[in-house]
């Protein structure tokens, strides 16, 4: 017991991990994918910075969100990006999403006995043009899903997504069916609501919100045009496209 007494002999060791708070989430649509994260980085009760991105564009159709121990996260993203660059050198094209997902599992599992203390969520567009989300645990277990939240406010956000995306605990009206995939504007509102709510209820969430939207090749930007401050990151409007939308969150 840390009571400052010498009553109990203690052997303590250097702890190579820390937790830096924040929350990430991703939702897949029929032909798009939204990957989002807040930008606060904290340790304990201290806010280290109000802007430390947790979501990264990997290719024109893959975006990775990383949450947990920030140092591990940054190094991991850097290594993933370099592996993707080698792939481009070898094959003269971007690695497909499902291949990136498998690669991430391999890279995570390679550190099975000294894990990267990070939760990854990979979102983007598959080769067949469908929106996809892959979620990982720190040692590489992964699966493809329609939506996933991770990080400090996972326990607040995931039940909300289960209800809003999977329609859990909802009774549909007679003769009405539930859509398999929600349209983009609805998904974006759910993402924004998730983060404003998590900001209200969790001290480690807040400051800023970054939402990446990946649109399948050929899909119109319908549903995005009404959003203010949408910024396109891809140079080529004929292929898959990546957009980012930034919003402020409460800073208290």
């Amino acid at each position: 017991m840390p009571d400052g007494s010498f009553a109990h002999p203690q052997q303590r060791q250097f702890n190579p991990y820390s937790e830096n708070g924040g929350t990430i989430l991703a939702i897949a649509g029929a032909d798009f994918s939204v990957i989002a994260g807040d930008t606060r980085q904290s340790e304990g009760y201290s806010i280290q910075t109000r802007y430390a991105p947790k979501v990264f564009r990997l290719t024109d159709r893959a975006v990775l969100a990383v949450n947990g121990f920030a140092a591990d996260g940054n190094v991991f993203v850097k290594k993933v990006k370099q592996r993707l660059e080698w792939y481009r050198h070898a094959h003269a094209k971007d690695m497909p999403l499902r291949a990136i997902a498998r690669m991430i599992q391999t890279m995570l599992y390679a550190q099975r006995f000294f894990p990267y203390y990070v939760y990854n969520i990979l979102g983007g567009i598959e080769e067949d043009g469908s929106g996809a989300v892959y979620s990982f645990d720190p040692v590489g277990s992964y699966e493809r899903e329609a939506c996933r939240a991770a990080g400090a406010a996972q326990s607040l956000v995931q039940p909300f997504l289960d209800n809003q995306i999977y329609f859990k605990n909802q009774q549909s009206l007679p003769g009405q069916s539930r859509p398999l995939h929600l349209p983009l504007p609805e998904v974006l509102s759910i993402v924004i609501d998730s983060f404003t709510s998590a900001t209200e209820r969790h001290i480690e969430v807040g400051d800023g919100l970054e939402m990446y939207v990946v649109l399948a090749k050929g899909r119109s930007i319908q549903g995005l045009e009404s959003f203010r401050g949408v910024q396109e990151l891809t140079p080529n409007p004929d292929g898959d496209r990546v957009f980012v939308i930034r919003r402020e969150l409460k800073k208290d």
Partner: protein
Amino acid sequence: MFRNNYDNDSVTYSPTGRLFQVEYALEAIKQGSAAVGLVSKKDVVLVALKRNAEELGSYQKKLIKVDDHMGIALAGLAPDARVLSNFLRKQAMNSKMIFNRPLLTSKAVYSIADKAQENTQSYGSRPYGVGLLVAGYDESGAHLYEFQPSGSVLEYFGAAIGARSQAARTYLERNLETIRETESPEELIVHGLNALRDTLPQDVELTYRNTSVSIVGKETKYTIYDDEDVQQWLDKLDSVSNARNRDDDDDDDENADNEQQDNQQDQQQEGGDSNNNEDRMETDE
């Protein structure tokens, strides 16, 4: 037949102070088809002539991307170039990993020069049989370097390596002023192709199949144009065949300053460009 006693290994000097193995390596570059590089204020262009071993075969790659800001053109043994470009890619990645900065062109080229020099000084090793033009845009601007198997490195405004590259150099020298002042990347590419055109053997024209074009610059990531994508550039030329072929003007090949070189050149020319097949596999043709 004359036998040279001083070329059995790369570490033994001849009594006249030469390293024959290293010089032979430099000859290997001339066996390869030409590559041309040129620099304006904010762009670097590499163009190269590709060769195919046979009619039905594919063309040997002449341009290799190293990073978004750097690429190389090769003449000589293509496998050696692949080893070197792979090493350069690793260096570029390392620079990003450790300092989060793009690899400087000078650092890149000196890193492979050091590797090449080692081979000229260790017993049992073979010098690289390839020459490279290294193009890069970094924080100090646009750069073009020539790498040689001897380990020597020089920076150029315009350079050409490979078979009949003297003709290209002549073009670059004559047009240096305009090339240096060129603002448009398109114009720079056209100058590059004009120079490359002058290296063409008889009865050969620049086609989208045998020509590779690449550019890197302030606003342009290193981009390679191959096959059908090359046609847009060829369309900008007044002619795709070389001036000598057009008006039967005879060649203006370099005036080598010693016997040995003269001899080799003669052999090369005698052997003809059309049927010199014995050691083709080894080169980038």
